[in-house]
């Protein structure tokens, strides 16, 4: 069976609308970057860049006055800053998951969304990195975390999870950028070759590095892509595990939990998929990409959301169970009283209902294929996952071991402004990406089309020429690196 053929017995459909030509696919995707932006883009860009302006103002004020402008105070010394950091890093994870893990598992439907998701990873990690940067109080001393000789002849403490975090998130960002750029090279060449103006030709030509689609290059290119995917897979699992160790290696009830690394990874993938879906639905309708981003892709993403929601729900239940089973009074006080019945009970309710109840609608196909429903659900999941981090961080701190030091946490307007501002930064970068770079991996999508099958003399009909046993494609495909492989 040809690799591009859907297995109809499993209810599979064509990945790209049947009958599309290669040129149509190029045109559909690349034209977006060549024509004037639709009105919807300008409206969104106006909102996003205004929020970016708000971000700049709030951060400037923060640097001017110091972290006292935030609501963080005894006993809640970590609040929105770290909540937002963990939330943004988590969102980034779906991008790597889609680009790397689904690639390794030969899930060809990823080609519709992987470029998108990778861009999302990079922009989300940029937003995430802002928070540890600005919460240190004296951001001009941030260089202390880097291991280089300084005037105090001090080295960083490599046994600190906070330093592991610097290496984990820094590596994650760098590798994501390399992976993204590698994937972009053939498409940048496509943009170069379609350019109408000298200026576009020079810029895209420079970035495409002289790519000429040579098969001798494709061979090394595909191996590089495979290796990057293979090393990104453990990397993405390690990043949120390391983030969780910022908490898990402490002795605070609610943080000191061995389930944290896998629980954080599942939550990260869950929230990341929700964010991919939110952004994808907007882009799909603004730029009319229905030919490439099919309902089938959205439905698969919804199934994935259901699965990861169940994983997250399992982790929540296990925390409760272990708190009760441990018999430890502090654990029990935290999980069985402070979370559901303490002063922040409403945050806990947001977390539980958005993350474990809302995705249950996806048991039904009618819900999985309903665009307004999935748009609202994806936003609710994003909110729920933000509250999950808020619950973990603030609720574990506001009532510590000594009742006399218990307190409440209230964010200030600057907290809100900076958080909303990073959402603006994220969408500003995203909208610029959508205008200037192909938002779907053109070359990869073509590789999943019937035209990519060298057995076909003309797309759509089987080639009948007899082949010798050692002829080519099947063996090459089975061991090959192209999105494809035996099905």
């Amino acid at each position, binding site marked *: 069976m040809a690799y591009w053929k859907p297995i109809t017995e499993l209810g599979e459909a064509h990945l790209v609308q049947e009958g599309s030509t290669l040129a149509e696919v190029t045109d559909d995707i690349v034209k977006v970057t060549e024509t004037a932006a639709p009105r919807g883009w300008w409206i969104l860009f106006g909102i996003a860049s205004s929020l970016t302006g708000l971000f700049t103002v709030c951060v400037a004020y923060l640097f001017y006055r110091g972290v006292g402008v935030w609501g963080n105070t005894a006993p809640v010394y970590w609040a929105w800053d770290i909540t937002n950091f963990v939330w943004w890093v988590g969102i980034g994870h779906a991008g790597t998951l889609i680009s790397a893990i689904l690639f390794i598992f030969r899930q060809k439907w990823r080609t519709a969304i992987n470029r998108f998701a990778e861009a999302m990873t990079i922009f989300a990690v940029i937003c995430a990195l802002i928070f540890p940067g600005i919460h240190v109080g004296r951001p001009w001393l941030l260089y202390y975390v880097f291991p280089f000789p300084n005037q105090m002849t001090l080295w960083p*403490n490599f046994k600190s999870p906070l330093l592991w975090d610097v*290496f984990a998130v820094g590596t994650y960002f760098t590798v994501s950028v390399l992976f993204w750029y590698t994937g972009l090279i053939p498409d940048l060449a496509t943009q170069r070759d379609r350019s109408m103006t000298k200026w576009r030709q020079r810029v895209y030509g420079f970035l495409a*590095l002289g790519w000429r*689609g040579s098969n*001798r290059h494709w061979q*090394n290119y595909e191996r590089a892509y495979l290796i990057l995917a293979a090393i990104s897979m453990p990397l993405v699992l390690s990043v949120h595990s390391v983030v969780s160790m910022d908490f898990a290696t402490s002795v605070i009830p609610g943080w000191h939990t061995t389930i944290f690394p896998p629980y954080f990874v599942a939550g990260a993938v869950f929230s990341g998929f929700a964010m991919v879906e939110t952004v994808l639905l907007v882009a799909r309708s603004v730029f009319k990409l229905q030919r490439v981003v099919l309902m089938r892709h959205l439905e698969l993403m919804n199934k994935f959301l259901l699965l990861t929601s169940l994983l997250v729900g399992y982790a929540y239940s296990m925390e409760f169970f272990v708190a009760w089973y441990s018999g430890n009074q502090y654990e029990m006080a935290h999980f069985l009283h402070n979370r559901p019945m303490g002063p922040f009970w409403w945050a806990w309710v947001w977390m539980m209902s958005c993350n474990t109840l809302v995705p249950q609608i996806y048991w039904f196909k009618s819900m999985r294929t309903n665009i307004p429903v999935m748009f609202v659900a994806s936003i609710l999941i994003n909110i729920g996952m933000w509250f999950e981090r808020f619950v973990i961080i603030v609720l574990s701190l506001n009532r510590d071991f000594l009742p006399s030091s218990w307190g409440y946490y209230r964010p200030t307007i600057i907290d809100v402004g900076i958080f909303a501002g990073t959402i603006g930064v994220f969408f500003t970068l995203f909208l610029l990406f959508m205008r200037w770079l192909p938002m779907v991996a053109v070359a990869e999508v073509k590789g999943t089309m019937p035209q990519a*099958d060298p057995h076909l003399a003309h797309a759509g009909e089987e080639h009948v020429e007899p082949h010798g046993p050692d002829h080519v494609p099947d063996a090459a495909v089975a061991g090959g690196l192209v999105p494809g492989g035996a099905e």
Partner: protein
Amino acid sequence: MDAKVAKSGAAVPAVILAEFGSAHDVLHAAEKVQAAGYRHWDTHTPFPVHGMDRVMGLRDSRLGWIVLAFALTGLTGAFVMMHWMNGVDYVTVVGDKPPGAPQTLPSMVPILFELTILLSAFGAVLGMFGLNKLPRHHHPVFASDRFRSATDDKFFISIEAEDPKFDVVRTRELLEGFHAAHVEVIEEEPA
């Protein structure tokens, strides 16, 4: 004859370029070019065509070895860095673990891992550029206007003049015999 004739009479053929309309046609033509004994030639396709490596007689990519070397550098570099900084140059004792003792290893694992991955990624990308001799913004094939569709929906075979079997007339005839949609000779002034 639609060869690009340069202004100066000194121009010599650099590449013969044949255009094909499908992955099927280019794969079969490539099979015959390889069988005809050419060595300095290439195919240009908008996406990697299944089985082309085999038809062109390419050996497996050596990139994996480059990445392995980078990975080992990252791993040992990370270990030496952490051991020297926290165990030798400025001893930092955490959790009562003697400096340099094997008990300090578990706390090194995250950074050992991250730096191995970081260096491997650089190895994969820079190694790929190195093996492909990219960036290279100038190449004779770019002189062809039709070649612009090599990144869209057309498939090309290029045979370079430096190939010992290269002969403008005979190589051109060979390529035309494969039902190529178009064959052109690209000329270049000798450097």
